[in-house]
C-alpha cells in the first residue's frame, strides 16, 4: 500500500530554470493494484515515479509505503521495498556484468551485502530455473555479459530481476518505449504475467493511451504536476481512447492537445 500526501517537488529552485514539477499530488494506492500513468511531456510522470523510488526527495508532503514513512529515505534504502524497470534498457542493468551477476545484484536488494559468494551453486540453479520460465532460451547464457542481449531481452531480464528480492512494489517508467512494437507487446505481456504471479502493486508510466486503458485496473492522468484524472472500475471499463482525449482536453480547460505523442493509440 502506497500513501502519497500532498507532495511538492521543485527543480532548480531560485534559478531562471526553476520548475515546479509536482504541485501537490495526493494519492492512495491499495496493495496489488496495477496503475497506469499518462500525461504529456513535462507533466511530472517521471518525477512522480522518481519521488516514489527516492531519486527525487519531496520538499513538502509525505510518502509512506506499507505503513513506513519513507519521505526522507534515499534510493538504496527504499530499494528493499521498491523495484524498478527503466525506459532505457541500458539503464536497468550492468552491461559489463554477466546475466547471473546482474540477477545476484538484484536478489540482494534490501539486504546487507556481506563477503559470502554472490553466486553459489544453489543460487545459480535458482536463477537458471527462473530465467528458463521467461521462455527466451536465456538459461544457457547465464555467463554471457548483459550487454550482448537485445533491448527486449534486457527488459525481460530486468522485469525478472525486479521479482527476485520479494519487493511488493514495481515502478515501470515507459519500459517499452525504446522497443519495436512486437517486442514491446511481448514485454507488456510478460509484465502482466509477472505482476499477476507476484501480486505486485504496480505503477506503469506510458505514452500510449491504448496501453494505459488495456493494462492494469486504474488510470491516472498527470498534468502540470497534478493528478487531473483518476479512473478505475466501471467508469474506466467504459472509456475509450477518444473519451480519454476528450477528458484530457476538458481538464486542460479546453485547450487543444498539441502533444502528438498523446494521440498515439
Amino acid at each position: 500500500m502506497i500513501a502519497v500526501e500532498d507532495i511538492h517537488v521543485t527543480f532548480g529552485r531560485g534559478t531562471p530554470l526553476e520548475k515546479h514539477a509536482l504541485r501537490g499530488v495526493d494519492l492512495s494506492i491499495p496493495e496489488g493494484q496495477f496503475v497506469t500513468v499518462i500525461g504529456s511531456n513535462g507533466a511530472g510522470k517521471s518525477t512522480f515515479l522518481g519521488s516514489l523510488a527516492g531519486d527525487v526527495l519531496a520538499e513538502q508532503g509525505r510518502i509512506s509505503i506499507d505503513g513506513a514513512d519513507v519521505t526522507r529515505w534515499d534510493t538504496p534504502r527504499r530499494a528493499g521495498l521498491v523495484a524498478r524497470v527503466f525506459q532505457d534498457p541500458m539503464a536497468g542493468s550492468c552491461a559489463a556484468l554477466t546475466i547471473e551477476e546482474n540477477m545476484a545484484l538484484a536478489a540482494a536488494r534490501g539486504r546487507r551485502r556481506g563477503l559470502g559468494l554472490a553466486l553459489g551453486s544453489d543460487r545459480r540453479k535458482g536463477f537458471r530455473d527462473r530465467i528458463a520460465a521467461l521462455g527466451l532460451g536465456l538459461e544457457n547464457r547465464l555467463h554471457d555479459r548483459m550487454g550482448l542481449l537485445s533491448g527486449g531481452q534486457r527488459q525481460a531480464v530486468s522485469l525478472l530481476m525486479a521479482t527476485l528480492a520479494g519487493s511488493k512494489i514495481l515502478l515501470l517508467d515507459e519500459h517499452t518505449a525504446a522497443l519495436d512494437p512486437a517486442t514491446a507487446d511481448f514485454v507488456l505481456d510478460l509484465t502482466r504475467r509477472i505482476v499477476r504471479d507476484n501480486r505486485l502493486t504496480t505503477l506503469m508510466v506510458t505514452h500510449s493511451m491504448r496501453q494505459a486503458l488495456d493494462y492494469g485496473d486504474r488510470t491516472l492522468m498527470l498534468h502540470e504536476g497534478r493528478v487531473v484524472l483518476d479512473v478505475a472500475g466501471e467508469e474506466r471499463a467504459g472509456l475509450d481512447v477518444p473519451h480519454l482525449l476528450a477528458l484530457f482536453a476538458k481538464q486542460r480547460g479546453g485547450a487543444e492537445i498539441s502533444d502528438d505523442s498523446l494521440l498515439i493509440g
Partner: protein
Amino acid sequence: MSEIALFGAIEIGLVYALVAIGVYLSFRILDFPDLTVDGSFPLGAAVCAVLLIAGVNPWLASLAAALAGAAAGLVTATLNVRFKILHLLASILTMIALFSVNLRVMGRPNVALLMQDTVLTPFYGLGVPDHIVRPLVVGAIVAAVVLLLARFLSSEFGLAMRATGVNARMARAQGVDTDAHVYAGIALSNALTGLAGALFAQTNGFADVTTGIGTIVVGLAAVIVGETVLPARALALALVGCVVGSILYRLAVQLALSADSIGLQASDLNLVTAVLVAVALILPRLKAKASRSTARNPGAAR
C-alpha cells in the same frame, strides 16, 4: 641482460604488481581515476621504514603501511563523495598533501634500512641466492593478494562494488550504497599501493619521498600491458593480467635500458614509461579507426 638484472626486473615488477592491481581497482572497476597512489606508495615506504627502525615486527610494519595507504585513499574518497570535488582533482590534492606528510613521517627526505630485519630476512641464507629469494617472497605475497582479491570481488559486497563502477544509477536502484563502495574501493586500492611501498622499502633498503613520482603511470602501464597480452573477461584472470603486465613492463624497460645501441640511460625511465603508456592508449583508437575505414571501403586495406 645479466641474470641479476633479470631477477631484479622481475622483483620490481612484482612489487609494482600490487600498484597495478590497486590501479585496476580504481580505474577499471570503480571508474575512478585516482592519482593518490603517487603519494600513498612513498607513504607506505616511509611508514614501514620508520617502524622497522623503531624495531617493529616487519609484517606488522607492512600492515601499518597498508593501513596508512587506506587512510590516504579515504581522504581522497571523502573529498570526492562527501564534498563533490572532481575525483581527479581530489586525488591530486591528497597526493600533494602526502608529499609533506611523508617528509614529516620520515623526518627527512630519505631513510636507509641497513641492518633492520625485513619480511625477507628469515628467507635469506637458506641456500637460495638473495636475488632469487626476493622475487620469490614478493611473488608469494602478490599471489596471496590476487587470490584474496579475486574472492572478495566475487562476494556480494565485491559484486556491488563492480556494479557501482559500471552503472551507479542501477546499483542504487538495486539498493547498493554506492558511496560506501567508493570509500571501500579507493581505500583498498591505496592499501595495496601502501603495501607495495612497504615491500619496495624492504627489498631496496631505503625509503625516499621522490619514489612516488609517476607511480600512477607505471601502474596504468602495467594494467594496459596486462590487458593487451591477457584480454580476459574473467576477473581472476584480469588480476593475473595486472601482475603479468607489471613484470613484462619492467622487463621491457630493463631491456631498453641495457641495450647500449639505443643509447638510453636510467634517468630516461619516466620518459620511456610516458611514451609507452601514450602509445598503448593511442593504439586501440588507431586500430578502431583502421577497421572502420576497412568496413567502409573493403578493398582499400589490401
